[in-house]
């Protein structure tokens, strides 16, 4: 009798001592299960992510103020040091841009005239939402940033996001006041592009390195290093003609792309909403 009670007590005690291990193992299994089975396009995961970003945004905003101040001061000092050079450079650039402006005006008039003659109708119009980059989530797994505008301002899934230099990425999920942008360098990014001069089409695919690769090159056509790439608008997801990058050669003879936007300087960006379907989609 005594022995049996003792045995029961000791089993209970050892079970109690082992309980944390069971809980730990359980939590590890749950985490592992999520890694292997919770896909990113899962709507529940997507909604949870968007809500978490919405909730965290004000705190991140508050925490980033000192960082922003320090950066501003550092930039101001650097700018002061290079004021003269910068001024000279801007003068030259301004001259160059004025010539381009004249040419652009001339071309715009010509395009308008030609469109009138051929009775051409533009099928798509775009509207822009300008916002700031709120958070950069690093580069170990995914290349993405959070922007400080969401469904509230009309930012939605699939929209293109642009920096002044060129295409940055696409909105993958939008919360109420924030949205996640998958950068064009991300592993999961596929952007239909074309060579600006020749119109040859290819697909630019990210691989989590700073330089995405070009795949699905046209057979028999040559794309050489140093050519500018713009979005082709193929598939209708992105507006055509957005600058993307310049082709650069790789060691194995393939082509990579040096993208135009600079991730460390990302600040003000624009989300583009296309109002109606694009030319390619409707002509097919």
């Amino acid at each position, binding site marked *: 009798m005594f022995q049996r009670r003792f045995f029961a007590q000791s089993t209970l005690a050892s079970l109690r001592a082992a309980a944390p291990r069971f809980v*730990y193992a359980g939590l590890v299994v749950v985490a*592992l299960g*999520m890694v292997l089975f919770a896909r990113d396009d899962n709507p529940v995961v997507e909604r949870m992510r968007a809500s978490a970003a919405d909730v*965290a945004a004000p705190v991140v905003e508050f925490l980033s103020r000192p*960082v922003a101040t320090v*950066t501003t001061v550092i930039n101001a000092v650097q700018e002061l040091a290079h004021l003269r050079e910068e001024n000279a450079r801007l003068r030259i650039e301004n001259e160059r841009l004025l010539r381009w402006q004249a040419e652009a005006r001339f071309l715009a008039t010509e395009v308008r005239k030609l469109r009138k003659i051929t009775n051409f109708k533009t099928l798509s119009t775009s509207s822009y939402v300008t916002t700031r980059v709120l*958070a*950069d989530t690093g580069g170990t*797994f995914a290349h993405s940033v959070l922007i400080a505008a969401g469904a509230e301002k009309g930012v939605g899934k699939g929209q293109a996001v642009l920096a002044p230099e060129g295409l940055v990425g696409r909105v993958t999920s939008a919360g109420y006041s924030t949205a996640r942008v998958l950068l064009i360098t991300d592993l999961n990014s596929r952007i239909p592009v074309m060579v600006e001069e020749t119109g040859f089409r290819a697909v630019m695919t990210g691989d989590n390195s700073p330089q995405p690769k070009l795949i699905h090159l046209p057979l028999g056509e040559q794309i050489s290093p140093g050519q500018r790439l713009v979005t082709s608008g193929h598939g209708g997801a992105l507006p055509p003609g957005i600058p993307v990058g310049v082709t650069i050669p790789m060691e194995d003879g393939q082509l990579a792309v040096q993208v135009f936007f600079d991730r*460390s300087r990302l600040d003000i960006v624009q989300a583009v909403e296309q109002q109606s379907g694009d030319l390619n989609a409707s002509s097919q």
Partner: protein
Amino acid sequence: MMFEGTLHNLDRLWRLASPFLLTLILVLLALIPTRIPELATIQPLLPLIAIYHWTVFRPDLMPMVLVFLAGMLEDLLSGGPMGIHTLMMLIVYGLVQSQRKFLFRKPFLVNWIGFAIFSAAAEIAAWTLGSLSLFAALPIRPFFFQFLITLALFPLLALALALWERHIIREY
């Protein structure tokens, strides 16, 4: 009298909750864009340091359920596969738990080395599982640099947390 008691309890509560709250703040801190060239893609994993520190010195204030929650927040906010940061934090937590008797009351250098080994294990696991779940071999460099920069920040953050423990949490 009762009011004073409530105030006292509230005060005690926030001090005891502060290790977890600090860990959450570290999760958010890593998201802030530094706008420093070359550093944009390498984010230190600061919460890992906090979890190491509290698990060694005040395991009563960092139960594993909270480790799990901090990891979930990191997973939700960073764009990676769900669960991967949770797993990294649980790995560090588990390894520290198994060696806690050895690490406790050891000189700082021993803890630094301990963190180096445990966080390396977590990064390797993260790279392997991340690659598996994304069906592609992820570039190794970002993981390596994340490991290095986190390790470099360890002394600073560990000191700050030790001071916090001594002056804010004190005898509670």
